[in-house]
């Protein structure tokens, strides 16, 4: 029988489908009776997507200009 800690410790293999059927059954039984862990699983899954959005970076135009000038100078000498 899993408790909250066992469930959270096994989230990554669970989400990647790498748990044994027996362990997965233990986890499902726990989740069925533990709403806080269900919310935890949902928010754990959502974390990567939110981080991806937050960490998007575009190249500033002046850096892009310097990159093109650098590559032209390097490649023309080849």
């Amino acid at each position, binding site marked *: 029988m899993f408790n909250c800690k066992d469930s959270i410790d096994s989230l990554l293999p669970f989400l990647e489908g790498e748990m044994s059927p027996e362990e997965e059954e233990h986890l499902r039984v726990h989740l069925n009776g533990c709403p806080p862990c269900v919310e935890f699983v949902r928010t754990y899954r*959502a974390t*990567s997507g939110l*981080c991806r959005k937050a960490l998007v970076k575009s190249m500033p135009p002046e850096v892009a200009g310097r990159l*093109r000038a650098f590559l032209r100078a390097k490649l023309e000498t080849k």
Partner: protein
Amino acid sequence: MTDVTVQDDRELLARAQAGDMSAFEALVARHEDKVYGLALRMTRSEADAAEITQDTFLSAYQHLAEFRGEAAFGSWVHRIAANNALMRLRRQKVLDIVSDDLAGPEFTDRGSLAEPPESDWSRRADDQLLDEELGRAIQVATDALPKGYREVFLLKDVEGLSYEEISEMVGISVPAVKSRLHRARLALREAIDAFYKEV
């Protein structure tokens, strides 16, 4: 990346391999944001990110003839950029903090969650626009991750590299990559939860 983009890349790549500089420049223009973004996220230095981007595309050009196109051009330059960024971080010998400093959920003696999540904010991930304050909180939390954990999290969850690629690049086993990824996700989840507690 869409199939159309990959197809366009293949055409540009074939022309670049035949010596068409403008085709190579078009490939650079298509992928420079992603490469620069990866380098900036990894190094947190605009100067380093600009240099890594230059080195990455120069290296890609120098090895164009060897690129057979089994993978997409974008994935290939992404891996070159990740390797360049990791090498630069290794040279800088940034001190790593022990993983005990990582935040995560707390449990009672019986292994129950000591504090249930603030609310189910998972649906916010589907919103097109991210709250600016939340974006800053995530940036701060990512920057605060110990280096070895930040690298793995960025390479897997943001850049989309495989466990095997990360294992090879970082020099740790696949189970160790997964362990670090899980701890990093827990710490970032905690930071986002704390953000929603405050608003």
